[in-house]
């Protein structure tokens, strides 16, 4: 891959997305962010080069899981973030194709390592 991989980040809190984008861009990735479903849908419609989606699910309705299904249908790997991850949520996320689920706050180094691992997985497949 000559160009930087594109990561799509979705989340309600703008500051979370800014911090996330800063970290990922420092890691050499391109990042597109969406703070609501509409923006997210539009990005998905126009970009067919999304390598990975990072979804901060806090604050969204159950519709968020439909987006997970869409991503899964397009074979886009997903990393789900939430402040609390009860078993029912974990079940929903995994059943809709999420590769990794992390509880916030996450350690920056852990997140970077997880994303590197997911990218490696994508490259291998």
């Amino acid at each position, binding site marked *: 891959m000559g160009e930087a991989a594109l990561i799509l980040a979705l*989340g309600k*809190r*703008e*500051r*979370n997305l800014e*911090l*996330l984008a800063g970290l990922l861009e420092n890691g050499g990735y391109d990042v597109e962010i969406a703070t609501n479903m509409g923006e997210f849908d539009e990005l998905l419609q126009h970009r067919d080069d999304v390598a990975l989606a990072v979804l*901060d699910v*806090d604050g969204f309705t159950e519709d968020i899981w439909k987006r997970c299904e869409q991503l899964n249908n397009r074979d886009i790997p997903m990393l789900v*973030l939430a*402040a609390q991850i009860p078993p029912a949520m974990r079940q929903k996320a995994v059943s809709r194709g999420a590769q990794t689920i992390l509880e*916030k*706050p*996450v*350690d*920056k180094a852990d997140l970077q390592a997880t994303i590197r691992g997911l990218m490696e997985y994508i490259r291998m497949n």
Partner: protein
Amino acid sequence: MSNSQLTKISTGTTGLDEILQGGFIAKRSYLLRGDPGTGKTILGMKYLTAGVEADETVLFVNLEESADDIRDNASTLDIDLSDVHFLDLSPDSDVFVDEQSYDIFTPSEVEQEPLTTAITDRVESIDPDRVFIDPLTRLRHLTSDEYQFRKQVIAFMHYLKEQGATVLFTSQHSDESSDDDLQYMTDGTIELEHSSHGRTISVPKFRGSSVNEGDHAMRIGQGGLSVYPEISPTEHSRSFEIESVSSGIPEVDELLHGGLERGTISILSGPTGVGKTTVGTQFMKEAAGRGERSVMYMFEETLETFRERSQTINIPVKRMQEQGALEVEEMKPLDCSATEFAYRVRKEVEENDTSIVMIDGIDGYKLSLRDDDDRVLVRKLHSLCRYLKNMGVTVILVDEIDTITGEFQATEAGISYLADNIVFLRHLEVTGEMRKAIGVLKKRTSDFERSLREFKITEHGLKVGEPLTELNSVLSGSPEVAQSASGNHNG
């Protein structure tokens, strides 16, 4: 480094410099502890402005209050911060806007690095001689655990010292988050307290130099803080000639075999209205005639009443005041603590070479001054009197006893052990007539007359008669005419 090589710098608060025996040791770090409202930030401001006055570069790192708020508060106290550099790291109001809040990473990961970078960048660009960080404990919220916090603080202090700065920082202490550990990481700790007994300042730790121990009094007012160090009697003295101080009334001097000696403590004891203040003032009137200065602290009477009363008995208080021979301070209830009072007396004695100090009276002193209890007040009075003795000051304490006549009692204040001299005054009832008597109960430095004498307060002043040899049982308050005198009288 030996003590002789240590450079001390002013803290900006005179009384604190005195407690620290010169001020902070340069290029060291000091912790300023205290609850909200105890004056930590004000002390820090004065520390910085003292640096400005010494042509130093000074930096205020504010981590909580905004720089604008700090400047506003300073201006209300007449503290000029215009030459103080600020590094404003206070939380921006934007943080409260939802868009600015975050939970994806811990604050320690998000904010610590930019904060450290901001501080180091600023320190390196202005190269300050003094740094004040308010409060340092905010770093605690930006570190993942206590170990990291300690490591961060120690590293930060080392860094600032390497830059050549003297560092003062405040801490916020709570039951959930103690700042006890910070005391181990610094060269000194200053503690500020505010209770119903008033404000106090103490220095529990000060590496490299001795300090004046104890709880010293403090006051917040225009210009910042006033600190009143507790008196250490043994640290003060001056040479003086041991001589008798005359009352100006030969009969009183005869009673005392010359008068009251310089550098002694005398108690004038007696019931209300008997003339204790007048007798004390008589000594000060005579001192004024010799060109000496006296000071009187009135705890139980107003200056106006005292002046008018004295005028009618030929003691020209107003003129003595105008000539600078007498200073009268009317003490208002709860105006100050016993430590602050002692400091005021000390300043008066040292700045004006005062030779007589009169405290009128002891009960008022105990009621008016803010302090824990009677024992503390008496201990502080004892300490003040010992200091005055060492300075050659003649001390007159006025002590009121409750009984008007009847069973004799020298003092009620539990301070008789303090006194070198006890002079007592009594109301007498002799054949249905009210009279007054004066006598000496104790005199450490010389012998004294054992008899009582009658005295009167007249428009010409105090009049004291010959010894009352014709009366028996005078101390009971109801004396009887002695047989021989009775016979003579009848005969």
